């Protein structure tokens, strides 16, 4: 039983892309497309979630994700409360469910949760009242489903559809919840070839079982790719000596114009941000004509609006 779906197959929480059918992913992307023009209008708001209260529960710091969730909720006319819990009662030892229960008593309708521990959003979703929806905004190394969805939206906007693409995900796959969400989304949506490229020390064992091809050098890995997704080198998660140095990493796996030339000439370059310039990506590429890194941020708002609207609506027939 997938905790994200109701008995009639409707989305009730968004916790991970793993286990969601293609129809739901496509519905989210199509709905996001309809929300795209709201950002261009005189009044950048629709009244869909008027009267709903959405709580951003960030147990781990984030600027971009929290901000885009906040903007998305406000464009849907919801009331948004931001809580950075590391600086609040968690330091006083309040248990996570007590925090959640207190907020539910304030008539919360939706929780957006980021936590350094894998499974935190699932745990909250299992323990809230049935009318409350939970969106996972990143949990440990596990999943970051709205990032995965906005990446799919970006690919679809620039490449049309998924059926003839070769997509490479480059870098620290081991520590990346974004990579896991992307791989599940790409394979579910029917991308025929998904590659992961990185040093052996940053590749999870058994990653091939997720339906990807593994490469350890950029030249063969990038050859013929339509989409190149760079991952952030997770300095803050790196425990122990997995890499000799960031300079060494850049030499072999940093995306430079020379390495990008191995991909197709019309390949797009993506990055979930924040970028380490000169570590995983060169500024010439990040700011270059093939980069779609800033559109990703803009699309993230429409995609998060779509997810919230689908979760907050009544039972669709």
């Amino acid at each position, binding site marked *: 039983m997938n905790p994200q779906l109701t008995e009639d197959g409707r989305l009730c929480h968004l916790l991970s892309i793993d286990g969601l059918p293609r129809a739901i992913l496509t519905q989210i992307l199509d709905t996001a497309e*309809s929300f795209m*023009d709201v950002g261009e*209008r005189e009044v950048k*708001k629709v009244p*869909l979630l008027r009267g709903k209260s959405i709580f951003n529960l960030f147990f781990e710091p984030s600027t971009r994700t929290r901000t885009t969730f906040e903007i998305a909720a406000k464009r849907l006319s919801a009331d948004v409360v931001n809580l950075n819990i590391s600086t609040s009662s968690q330091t006083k030892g309040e248990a996570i469910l007590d925090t959640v229960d207190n907020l539910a008593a304030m008539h919360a309708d939706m929780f957006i949760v980021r936590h350094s521990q894998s499974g935190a959003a699932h745990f909250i979703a299992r323990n809230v009242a049935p009318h409350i929806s939970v969106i996972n905004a990143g949990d440990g190394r596990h999943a970051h489903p709205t990032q995965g969805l906005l990446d799919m939206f970006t690919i679809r906007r620039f490449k049309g559809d998924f059926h003839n693409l070769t997509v490479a995900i480059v870098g620290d796959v081991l520590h990346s919840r974004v990579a896991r969400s992307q791989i599940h989304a790409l394979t579910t949506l029917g991308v025929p070839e998904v590659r992961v490229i990185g040093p052996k020390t940053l590749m999870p064992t058994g990653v091939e079982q997720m339906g990807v091809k593994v490469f350890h050098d950029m030249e063969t890995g990038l050859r013929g790719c339509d989409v190149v997704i760079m991952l952030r080198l997770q300095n803050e998660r790196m425990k122990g000596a997995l890499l000799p140095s960031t300079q060494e990493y850049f030499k072999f796996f940093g995306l430079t114009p020379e390495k990008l030339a191995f991909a197709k000439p019309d390949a797009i370059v993506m990055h979930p941000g924040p970028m380490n310039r000169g570590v995983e990506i060169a500024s010439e590429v990040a700011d270059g004509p093939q980069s779609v890194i800033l559109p990703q941020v803009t699309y993230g708002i429409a995609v998060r609006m779509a997810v919230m609207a689908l979760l907050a609506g009544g039972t669709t027939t």
Partner: protein
Amino acid sequence: MHASLPDADTLIRQLADAIAPTLTPDTLIVGIHTGGAWVAERLHALLQSTTPLGTLDISFYRDDFSRIGLHPQVKPSNLPFDLENRDILLVDDVLHSGRTVRAAMNELFDYGRPASIRLAVLVDRNDHELPIRPDFAGLTITVPDNQNINLSRLDDGHLTLSLA
């Protein structure tokens, strides 16, 4: 049951004849998805309007969202013009409760402040729940509450009205 309702194309031509004398050259025609957009497309051609045709999907403005959720196939609204201070002719297929038209007007005002909005419908069911009345109606008819009047488009583009 088809026989009990007039031919849709005939009604659209009559509607166009009624609208024509009141139409200024810069009136913007906006149809509500999906049936209203078909009717608007016909009126736009019959009236030889030179302004771009607009379409509106009111899914994000419905008053029953919290009960029934989002329509599974939301289409983007397409208003390829600035409607500030313009005269709008809003077009729908069937006017029943008036809730769709209310939602459409709310949406239009989020794009700007039009000078005026007039409402043209193919069929006015004459059983309103809101103080909204059409300025132009191809047909005014009273049918029992449990019956639906539907406009559908055949593969050849022909529009037909049915009662079910």
